Structures are given as structure tokens and as C-alpha cells.
């Protein structure tokens, strides 16, 4: 896995996805007194996913703020603080709860700069979990990344590795634009190497080629990068060479890297855990149809959750959610092996 943003001279450190996020927050809070964390159970509890464990001890309750269960106030207060010079990180416990703060995100945060004629800086990072953690049913399992892709003004970041989680979060915190930062719950415990550098940052708008291949491209979002790599390993046994591309940010979208990959392989699968209908893949597929159709030897195939609410029953849930086997099936469809 090559990454041009990693300086070869900097030592790598093994850490979990969760630790990577925590490190980025801690390092930025040490560096800049304007950075603080606010959300439900982020302090004493350490975050329901444990991401902010012990941060209260280092930074105190002023900068690691437990809030009431008030998503409108969490996001809106973050926005107001950002407008007067702070760099808040606010945490929304589940992606499903973003809708509780819907007005603040879609009408206030995203539009503040534009509506004010470009005057409002909004250095606000909204950290939020995404994806189904298993038998959590329809209000704690959704992947709402694309809900906000239709709202201009907010950047949408979807890390899939510890290194990207750390580097992208740093870019979010240091930037002047609002960011929705989606953390797949089921990746928190996954480990990987990340540069041990308090300035390591991954720029937005640069996709990552997670695995190089010749025959077919999988453009995978969030946790589906992991499943796509597993699928690619499986297809290698059949001598099918799969390229896996991780956009890393959906807004902005690195169209060039996606198109370059498709130009090379001439086949493409787009995979995400979000529901298929108008999921992130719909935008990516439409973009490829408009700008890369001449490279394609077959249809653009999408993999995503079936268009029903996420069920509680494990067998039903498994049926609705996409996984590596769905990507394998989609890939093989190009060779009539579905």
C-alpha cells in the first residue's frame, strides 16, 4: 500500500482506528488551545465507543465537554464557537442521530460561509459513527454519508484505515470548512500502521489506491474498503486482478484517480454499506457514466445495502447488508460467473 503523503523518513506506529482518531484529537488539542471536544458521553465515559478515553484527564472538563442529549445544541453550539474563532470537534454518537441536528447541519453549518458572502469561517469537525454494529436495528445502524452529499458547503470524509483516520481528521480540524467525519463502528478495533508524526495530514480530495490491479476496479467507501480487499484477494486465486480505490473523501471527490483506474481496468464496481438508492455510489456511478463511459466494457455495478431499514434479526440484517461475498459476486459478474 503506497501513499505519497507518507514521508519515508518518519517512523510508522501500529495503532487501532480508534486510537488513531484519539491521537489526532489529542495532538491537535495540545497544539491549539482553540480545539476542544464536545458531545454526549465523551468525557467521563470516554465516548460510548471509547474513542476519547482518558482525554478528560489530560484536558479537563472545559475542553472535553459532556453535553446533554441535545444534538441541535451540540452542532449549533459548535457552529457558533467556530464562527468566533474556536475549532470545535463535536461528536454525534450515531449517524442516525444526525437528523436530530438536521437543520443545524444542512441549513446553518453548511451554508454559513456562502450565505455571508464568504465571510464566515466554519472550522467545525462533526465526528460521527456510521454503519451497522450488529443487531442494532434501524435507528443505530445506518450509513448516512450520502444524505449530506446533496447539501453543498460541507465536506464529507470517509476514512477506512487508521492512517487515513488520523491524517484526514487532522486536515479536518485544521481546515476552515465544516466537515462531517464518518467513523465506521466496525473498524474501531482494526489495527494498522500510521506515521508517528504530529503533523501527518492527509489532504482532502485525494483518493488512495489501496490495491493495484489490472482487470477490474472496486471503488469502495469506508468499511467496504476492507471487504473489497478481501474480495480482491479471493479473486486473485482465479487470476483476476482487482484494483481497490478508496475515495477517502466523498466531498470533494477525486474524480481523476477514479477515472484513471477505470480507464486502466475498463470495469468497475462501486461498493458502500449505505443503502443503494441514492447512496454515495449513485453519485460516483453517474460521474463515471458522464466522464468515463468510453473506457467501460460493461455496466457500472453497485454494491450496497438493500433499500429497506436495517433489521434487528441477525439473519435478516446479514441479508440486507453488503459484505465481501457481495463484492465477489459483483466482480465475477463481469466474467459471467455470478
Amino acid at each position: 500500500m503506497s501513499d505519497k503523503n507518507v514521508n519515508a523518513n518518519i517512523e510508522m506506529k501500529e495503532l487501532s482506528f480508534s486510537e488513531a482518531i484519539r491521537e489526532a484529537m489529542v495532538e491537535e488539542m495540545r497544539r491549539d488551545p482553540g480545539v476542544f471536544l464536545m458531545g454526549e458521553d465523551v468525557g467521563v465515559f470516554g465516548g460510548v465507543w471509547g474513542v476519547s478515553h482518558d482525554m478528560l484527564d489530560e484536558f479537563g472538563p472545559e475542553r472535553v465537554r459532556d453535553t446533554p442529549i441535545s444534538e441541535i445544541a451540540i452542532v449549533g453550539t459548535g457552529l457558533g464557537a467556530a464562527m468566533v474563532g474556536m475549532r470545535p470537534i463535536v461528536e454525534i454518537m450515531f449517524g442516525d442521530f444526525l437528523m436530530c441536528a438536521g437543520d443545524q447541519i444542512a441549513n446553518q453549518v453548511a451554508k454559513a460561509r456562502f450565505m455571508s458572502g464568504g465571510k464566515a469561517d466554519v472550522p467545525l469537525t462533526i465526528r460521527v459513527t456510521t454503519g451497522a454494529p450488529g443487531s442494532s436495528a434501524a435507528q443505530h445502524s445506518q450509513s448516512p454519508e450520502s444524505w449530506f452529499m446533496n447539501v453543498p458547503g460541507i465536506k464529507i470524509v470517509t476514512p477506512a484505515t487508521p492512517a487515513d483516520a488520523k491524517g484526514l481528521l487532522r486536515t479536518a480540524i485544521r481546515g476552515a470548512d465544516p466537515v462531517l467525519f464518518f467513523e465506521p463502528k466496525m473498524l474501531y478495533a482494526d489495527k494498522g500502521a500510521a506515521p508517528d508524526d504530529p503533523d501527518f495530514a492527509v489532504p482532502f480530495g485525494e483518493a488512495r489506491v489501496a490495491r493495484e490491479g489490472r482487470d477490474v476496479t472496486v471503488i469502495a467507501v469506508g468499511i467496504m474498503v476492507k471487504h473489497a480487499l478481501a474480495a480482491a484477494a479471493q479473486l486473485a486465486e482465479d487470476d483476476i486482478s482487482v484494483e481497490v480505490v478508496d475515495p477517502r473523501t466523498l466531498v470533494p471527490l477525486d474524480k481523476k484517480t477514479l477515472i484513471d483506474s477505470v480507464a486502466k481496468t475498463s470495469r468497475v464496481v462501486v461498493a458502500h454499506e449505505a443503502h443503494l438508492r441514492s447512496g454515495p455510489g449513485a453519485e460516483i456511478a453517474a460521474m463515471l457514466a458522464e466522464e468515463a463511459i468510453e473506457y467501460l466494457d460493461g455496466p457500472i455495478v453497485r454494491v450496497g445495502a438493500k433499500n429497506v431499514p436495517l433489521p434487528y434479526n441477525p439473519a435478516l440484517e446479514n441479508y440486507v447488508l453488503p459484505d465481501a461475498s457481495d463484492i465477489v459476486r459483483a466482480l465475477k459478474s463481469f466474467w459471467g460467473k455470478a
Partner: protein
Amino acid sequence: MSDKELTSYSKDFLAELFRKMVLVREFELRAIEERRNGLIPGFIHSCVGQEASAVGATAALTQEDVITSTHRGHGHLLGKGGDPKYMMAELAARSTGYCLGRGGSLHLADFELGILGANGIVGGGIPIAVGAGLAFQMRGEKRVSLSFFGDGATNEGAFHEALNLAGLWSLPVIFLCENNLYGEGTPQDQQAPIADLAKRAESYGFPGEIVDGNDVLAVYEATKAAAARARAGEGPTMIEAKTYRFRGHYEGDPQIYRKPGEMAEWRKRDPIPNFRQRLLDAGLFDAEALDEIEADVQADLDEAVAFAESAPAPKPEEALAGVYAETHDGLIF
């Protein structure tokens, strides 16, 4: 009427309150006229009748303090020092307007003046004001954040979440509710089971005070006391200014919802002629001095309209700029 003697204020201060109330009223009337003339393409939600609350409250703030405003926000902006030229140009959708013609009346903002924005969403600015108050508290600054909103906003979730948080954290925020008795076209008494909305503050652990919203000095004194509380670290205050709007929710609103006789009663309490009469009765100003202030306002507004008319319209493709601070390929396509 506020109890304090007029003579306890400086003449300059009283003249400025009068000038600003006249400016707000005349700005609204001019904007309405220019909308009819075709200069202004968008809706206008005028605050005619509510000048005292806008001017009284902002007079109690410093330049470093901030406000969030509403769809009926022209008075709040002018009170906080907004320049009628840039406001009129924004209403006229020109590049020289406060928001380069991208925001219009509902989104007027000037961060240098501490105006964090009007708002098109009822109650939308309240949590934003709380956030600014949080930042001031965290940085140890003696600044105050004031959120204007109407009676209708007190039935929004944003109001309750924001007041709860401000009370919980004792933030330096003033919640200034302009209760004009109507939420759009529905009377306040059909929108909430209580008439005195200031009572809602108590459940969030801080005082709620009712003032005569048509008495500029009463609003000023209440806001000044609330600001002193906030600066002393004693937390938020809610002020309910009882007032009335003399025009529709928006220009063109047929106002079929008004209660009979209500308008005539409130017209007797028009904040501007009443304040003018008080200034005359106290012998502080003669009629000529006040006439001169009114004439100066008209001259300023002539200038504002001329400025708006002469300004270039934005180029259509300018719509693509200013969405993000940091642009990238693949961001806008």
C-alpha cells in the same frame, strides 16, 4: 415606561436611540418601496412597530459583543451598527452588499460588527449564539452573545436545547424574545399554552424578565442588566419584549388573522412617536432638532438606495465562489 428619569441619560445617547429607531422604521419603509420599484427581488419581513426592542437591546451591547438575528432582522443589524448602504445593496442582490448578493435579507451578516447572521430558519440562530457565548467563556473574555428571536421560535426544539445548555453551563448569553403576538399568521395564544414566554427561562435555571418591548429605554435597561450579569459570570437571562408588528409577516401578507381593534390599540403605543414626545416633554430637545435627525436619516437612506442602484450585479458564475474556504478539484461540479 421605564422608571428612570430621561435626564439621567446623556442627550447624545437619547438622540442616538431616536435616530436609530427612525432609521430602522424608515429603512423598512424604503426597502418596501424599493421592492415595489423592482430594485429588491426577494421577500421582506419588516420590523415596523418593533424598533424599540431592536434598538434598545443593541444599545446595551459593545462592539465586541455578538448577536444572532432573525428573518425580521433589519432592526437588529442597524442597531448593532450595520451600514444601511451595504444592507440595501444586499437586499438589491448586488456584489457590494454585505453578503455579495448571495444571502439577501434573511442572511445579512457582518462578522466585524459581531453580527453572526440573520436567519431564515425560525430559532436557527439561538444555538449559534450559545456557541459564541461558550467560546467567550472558555477564553475568559468578558463578551456577551445576544440572540434575537420571536415568540414563534420558543416552540422550536432549538430554543429549548440551546437554553438548557446555556443554563447548564452558565454561559454569557442573552435570549431576547420579541413577542409580537403572531408566529407568522397564527396568534401566539394558539401556538403556546402560556402568554408570558419569559417563564420558560425558569425551567432552564435562569431568570426570565418581561419588558415593554415598545419602550426603548425599558429594553435597554433590561438588556444592560442582563449583560452585566453575563459579564460577571452569572449566566444567561431571557428577556421577553412584548411588542407588535404593524405590517404583515412578509410584505404582501393579507393579514386576515388580526384580531379586531388590536392594531388600533397597538398603534397608540407606537414606539417612535411616543419616544419623540417624551424627549419633547422632558424639554431635552426641540422639535426642530428631532426633525433634523429625521431629515438626516432620509438623506442616509437616499444615499443607501443610490449606492445599491449604482452597484454592479454579480456575474452569474460568481455563484460558484465562496462556498468553501479551501477549494479542491472535485468539490464543485
